[in-house]
C-alpha cells in the first residue's frame, strides 16, 4: 500500500473510531443527568437505577474516547507533520482551550462516579451536568479546529509563508458555527436513537420492562428533538458550503455543470468520465433553492473548478445521500413518536413503534460517519482548503502501511471489547441495576 493512502486511511479510521466514542461520551452524561434529576425530584428508585446503569456507560465511553483522543493528538504529527508545522500555531487555540474543557470533564467525572452518597445530592448532580457541558464544549472546540481546515482564516498566506497569525480569528472562522451546530445535534440524534433502540429491544424482550421504559423515554425524547432540529442546521450547512467550498457541494450532489435553476439529484450513480448521473431522481430547481435560497440561483458545477482540485465525486456523493436519507428516516420516526406522545398515547405501548426504534438503532451512527466522510473527502485534495494539499502534508517516513494495519487491528479489537462490555452491562441490568426486579426475585 502506498504511504500516502495508508496515512489517510489510518487517520480516517482513527477519527471514525474516535467520533463515535466521543459523541456517546458527550451526550450520555445529559441522559444520565436527566434520569438523575427525576430521581432527585420524584424519588422514584427506577430513575436511580437508570442513572447508575448509564453512568457505567459514560465511564467506559469517556475512557475509550479519551484514549483515542490522546492518540489522535499524536497522530496529527506522526502522519501529517508538514501540516502541523504550519497549522499548529494557527488553529491551536481551540485545542488549547479544549485541553482545559477536557480536563474539567475528567475531574467532574471523578466527582460524579465516585461521589455517590459523599456529597450534597444536588452538588453531585451538578458535577454530572459539568461532565456533559464540558464534553459538549470540547466537541465544539475540536470541530472549530476542523472547520478552520475547510475555511482557513486568521493568517495571510504570502509566498508560501504563513504570516500575521491571529489564533482567535482562526478559531472563529466562517465555518465553525455551522459545523459545530451540525455535529452537536448529530451527536444527540445518533446517541439518542442508539440508546433508545437498545432499550426498546429489551422492552420487546420483556426484560426489566419498567427500567427500560423509563430509560427508553428519556433517550427517545432527546432523539426526537434533535432529529427535528437537524434539517434546519443541515440547511445552514448547505448554504455555507455552497458559498465557501463549491467543489465540495458539487461533489456531494454530483453536480457536474454550472447552471441556473439546478435540480436536486437524489441517489443515482455518478459517471465522472461522461459527467452524468445515471438512475437518479431529479427535483427541478431544488438544488438552486437549497444552496442559494432562490429557485433560479446559479450553482457552480465541477466544470468551474480545475480538474486537479476535484474531490472524489462518487464517495462524497454516496456518503451525502446516505446521510440525508438516514436523517430523513429518523426525522420520520421522530415525528411519529412526537405525534404519539401528544395525540396517541396508546401507540407508545405498541410493539410496532418499539420495533421501528430497534431498526433505527445504528442509523444515527451510520449517518454520522457518512457526514464525516462528506466533509473530509469533500475537502480533498486539500488538507487546508485552497492553501495546502494533503499529499504535501504527509510524513516522509516510509512504511506507514504497517502502522495502518497495526492501528486498524487495535481499533477493531477495542470496538469488539467495548461491544461485549456493553452487551454484558445491558444483559446484567436485572442483577446489577434494577432494584424492583431484585426484590421480586429474592
Amino acid at each position: 500500500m502506498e504511504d500516502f493512502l495508508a496515512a489517510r486511511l489510518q487517520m480516517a479510521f482513527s477519527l471514525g473510531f474516535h467520533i463515535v466514542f466521543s459523541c456517546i461520551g458527550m451526550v450520555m452524561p445529559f441522559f444520565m443527568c436527566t434520569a438523575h434529576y427525576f430521581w432527585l425530584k420524584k424519588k422514584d428508585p427506577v430513575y436511580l437505577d437508570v442513572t447508575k446503569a448509564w453512568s457505567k456507560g459514560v465511564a467506559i465511553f469517556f475512557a475509550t474516547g479519551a484514549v483515542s483522543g490522546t492518540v489522535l493528538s499524536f497522530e496529527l504529527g506522526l502522519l501529517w507533520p508538514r501540516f502541523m508545522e504550519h497549522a499548529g500555531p494557527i488553529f491551536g487555540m481551540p485545542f488549547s482551550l479544549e485541553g482545559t474543557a477536557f480536563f474539567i470533564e475528567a475531574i467532574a467525572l471523578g466527582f460524579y462516579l465516585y461521589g455517590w452518597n459523599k456529597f450534597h445530592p444536588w452538588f453531585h448532580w451538578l458535577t454530572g451536568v459539568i461532565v456533559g457541558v464540558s464534553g459538549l464544549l470540547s466537541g465544539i472546540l475540536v470541530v472549530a479546529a476542523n472547520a478552520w481546515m475547510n475555511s482557513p482564516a486568521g493568517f495571510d498566506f504570502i509566498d508560501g509563508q504563513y504570516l500575521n497569525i491571529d489564533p482567535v480569528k482562526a478559531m472563529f472562522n466562517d465555518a465553525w458555527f455551522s459545523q459545530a451546530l451540525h455535529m452537536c445535534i448529530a451527536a444527540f440524534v445518533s446517541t439518542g436513537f442508539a440508546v433508545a433502540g437498545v432499550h426498546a429491544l429489551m422492552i420487546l424482550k420483556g426484560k426489566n420492562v419498567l427500567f427500560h421504559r423509563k430509560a427508553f423515554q428519556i433517550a427517545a425524547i432527546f432523539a426526537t428533538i434533535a432529529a427535528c432540529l437537524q434539517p434546519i442546521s443541515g440547511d445552514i450547512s448547505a448554504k455555507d458550503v455552497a458559498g465557501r467550498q463549491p467543489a465540495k457541494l458539487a461533489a456531494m450532489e454530483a453536480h457536474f455543470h454550472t447552471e441556473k435553476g439546478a435540480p436536486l439529484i437524489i441517489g443515482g450513480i455518478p459517471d465522472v468520465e461522461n459527467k452524468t448521473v445515471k438512475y437518479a431522481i431529479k427535483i427541478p430547481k431544488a438544488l438552486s433553492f437549497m444552496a442559494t435560497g432562490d429557485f433560479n440561483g446559479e450553482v457552480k458545477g465541477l466544470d468551474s473548478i480545475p480538474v486537479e482540485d476535484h474531490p472524489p465525486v462518487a464517495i462524497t456523493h454516496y456518503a451525502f445521500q446516505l446521510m440525508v436519507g438516514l436523517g430523513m428516516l429518523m426525522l420520520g420516526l421522530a415525528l411519529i413518536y412526537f405525534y404519539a406522545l401528544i395525540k396517541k398515547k396508546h401507540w407508545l405501548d405498541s410493539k410496532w413503534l418499539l420495533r421501528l426504534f430497534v431498526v433505527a438503532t445504528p442509523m444515527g451512527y451510520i449517518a454520522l460517519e457518512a457526514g464525516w466522510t462528506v466533509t473530509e473527502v469533500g475537502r480533498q485534495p486539500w488538507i487546508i482548503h485552497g492553501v495546502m494539499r494533503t499529499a504535501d502534508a504527509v510524513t516522509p517516513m516510509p512504511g506507514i502501511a504497517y502502522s495502518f494495519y497495526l492501528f486498524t487491528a487495535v481499533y477493531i479489537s477495542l470496538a469488539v471489547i467495548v461491544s461485549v462490555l456493553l452487551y454484558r452491562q445491558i444483559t446484567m441490568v436485572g442483577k446489577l441495576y434494577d432494584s424492583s426486579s431484585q426484590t421480586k426475585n429474592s
Partner: protein
Amino acid sequence: MVYVVIVFLWTAILLYILLGGADFGAGIMELFTSKKNRHRTRKNMYEAIGPVWEANHMWLIIVIVILFVGFPKIYTTVSVYLHIPLVCMLLGIIARGTAFVFRNYDAVKDGMQKVYTPIFVVSSVVTPFFLGIIAASSVSGQIDLQAADFVSAYIFSWLNWFSLSVGLFTVTICAYLATIFIIGETTHPDDRALFIRKARRVIFVVMGAGALVFMAAYAENIPLMDWIFSDYPGVIALVLATISLVLTFIELNKGHAIILRFFAGFQVSMILFAATYSHFPDIVLLKGGENLSLLTHQGQYKTIASLGWALLIGSVFILPALFYLIYSFRTKKSEQHD
C-alpha cells in the same frame, strides 16, 4: 509570555511524571508482587487512584498541545524521527487505559479478567519505558535530519544504550513513586509493613538504574556528566535529590506519609530539573550540533500570547477543581475509616 508557556510546559511534564508516573507504577508493582499479596496491593492501589485516575493522564495532552501550538517545529521533528517509539508508547497508552476501565466496568467478572490484567500490567511497563526512550532520544543527539537511509533516520535516532537505560530508569521511578504514594494510603499495619519493605527494595533498584544511565551515557559518548556537573544549579539539584533520597530511606518506617511523598516528589523534580537545566532553552539536540530551542523555534507572537492566556485561564478553572477533587476524596475516605 513565552516564559509563561515554558513554565506550564515544564510543570505539565513534571506533573505527568509524578501523577501519571505513580499511576503507571501501580501497574508495575502489580507485576512485582507475589500472588499472595496481589489482591491486597491492587485493592489499596485502586482505592487511592480511582477518582483521580483520568485526570492524571490529562497532563500528557497538555504537554502535546503546548508543543504543537507553541513550538510546532519541535513537535513535528520529534514526531517524524521518533515515530516508532511514539507509536509504541501510544499502543501502551491505548492498551493500559482501556484495560483499566474494562476490568473495573465489566459487569461479569469472569475469565476476561485474566485477559485485562496482563494487558494492564504489561502496558504499565511498556508506556513509561518508551516515554523514557523518547525523552532521552530528544537529547542524545542521534536525530539526524540529513540521514539518507531508513535505519539511521528512524531507528538509530532512538535505539541506543543511553535511551534504553533512561527508559528503564523511568520505569523504576514510576514504581518508586507508586510505592511511596501507597504507603500513605494503607489502612492496615500489615499492608503498611509490606509496602515499606517494597519501597526499600525499589530505592535500590532506582539507584542501580540511575547508575546504569551514567554508564550508558559514558559508553555512548553523551556528555551527561558535563551537563549535570558543569554548573551549580545542576550539582545542587543532584545533591539535594540524593540527600532527600537518604532521608526517605531513613524515614520510611515511622515517617509521615505526606513527608515521604514530598521527598519523593522533590527528588523527581530535581532529577527533571538537572536533566533539563543545562540545555535550556534547547530541548531537542540534533546530530551535527544543531539544536531546537524553545526560544528560537517558538511560534509567532500572537500564537504564544493566546496560548499563554489560554493556559493561565485554564489553570484558574482546573487547579482549584483538581485540588478539591483530591482533597474531598481524602477527607471523605478518612471519615469513612473513623
